[in-house]
């Protein structure tokens, strides 16, 4: 039960695990698009790397017939997001388009939301972000550079959504299906990542989510994610929480 009214749009994503080849293109695209600081070696070692989308890799089966399984994980933009109500300053909340938005100005950095997130897709800026001199001019002007001491996470490339909406309004027309592509989905070579509007019954994602392979991650938390996964076809078992733990 949620009291957010999704006027026109309810943005979401359908991830077809069957198509994912684990090439990490989405990770790089996201990094470049959203001004995510570089994950230098020491940051990764200290467990402070930031990657809004990550490819989890699991091994399935025993040698010799071992299969590599990939599953891209980004913010699931849950309807009942456990990260939202715990924030004392409304720095993260659910907007009317079904996005779980992070307001950098409000954030004081209690990191409570990060504890609340079962998918662990929220990241804290322990240091001021720094870029090598050569990359200074590559920063995306549409995206805030997050200062230290605040949380950040996948925003479904909200700036792209805004720009597309503005364009559509200026040409006074409705947004077309597939007009908006997030950085990761546009970078995906196998189009495993599909972004779209779940409120539009005949949008691509709406049709895809009707697929009988569909499932959501960690459903025991009843978070009602807006990211739907389609299971791999060569096995009826879902790549998800269940055997991920066993392969850990």
């Amino acid at each position, binding site marked *: 039960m949620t009291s957010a009214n999704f006027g026109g749009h309810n943005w979401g994503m359908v991830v077809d695990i069957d198509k994912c080849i684990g090439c990490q293109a989405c990770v790089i695209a996201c990094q470049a698009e959203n001004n995510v600081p570089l994950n230098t070696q020491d940051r990764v070692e200290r467990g402070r790397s930031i990657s809004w989308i990550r490819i989890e890799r699991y091994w399935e089966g025993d040698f010799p017939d071992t299969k590599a399984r990939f599953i891209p994980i980004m913010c699931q933009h849950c*309807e009942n997001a456990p990260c939202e109500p715990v924030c004392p300053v409304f720095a993260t909340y*659910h907007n009317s388009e079904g996005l779980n938005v992070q307001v950098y100005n409000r954030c004081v950095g209690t990191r409570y939301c990060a504890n609340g997130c079962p998918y662990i897709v929220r990241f804290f800026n322990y240091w001021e972000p720094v870029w090598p001199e050569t990359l200074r001019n590559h920063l995306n002007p549409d995206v805030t550079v997050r200062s230290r001491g605040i949380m950040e996470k996948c925003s479904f490339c909200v700036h792209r959504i805004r720009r597309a909406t503005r364009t559509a309004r200026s040409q006074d027309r409705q947004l077309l299906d597939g007009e908006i592509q997030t950085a990761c989905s546009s970078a995906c070579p196998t189009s495993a990542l599909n972004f779209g509007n779940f409120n539009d019954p005949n949008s691509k994602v709406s049709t895809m989510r009707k697929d009988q392979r569909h499932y959501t991650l960690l459903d025991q938390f009843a978070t009602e994610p807006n990211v739907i996964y389609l299971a791999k076809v060569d096995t009826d078992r879902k790549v998800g929480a269940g055997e991920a733990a066993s392969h850990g």
Partner: protein
Amino acid sequence: MSTRSMLGLFQQPEPAADAMDGLKEAGFELGSFDVLTGVPYPEGAFGEYVPQHRLFRFPAFGAIIGFTLAVFLTSVTQLAYPVVTGGKPILSLFAMLIIMYEMTMLSAVIASVFGIIFESRLPNMKPGIYDPRITEGWIGVVITFDDDSRVADAEGVFNRAGAVEIKHAS
């Protein structure tokens, strides 16, 4: 208004009580004389009249104030800028209850502290005649006169009761 007052000091409770009785018999009206101790003695130990108080009204009053304030704070602030978080209702009663509870208790405590200080007739920057030895265990019987004529018989009562010392003040 009290023109002058007198303090009789006793070392033991018994004589002090005698003095109180004596004053009663001598016909001084209750309330014009009182006993000062450094220790809380059981109520009525000196046959003094038991003071009436309305202490318990203060916390009740405070609680009501605090509760209304809390209801206002928790509901109005949420409605003023409705933000949906995690699909919880804008007015999440069970979260608000906790805040209401705390604020109710807080103002109840503050009110009752005011009550305690007020009901002990404090602060009183002109306490009147007093002796430091009272906090060393001596017991003082203090009496205020409207007319000086009766000072003598009060003094008599004190002496008969065995006052160690008698102080005067105007």
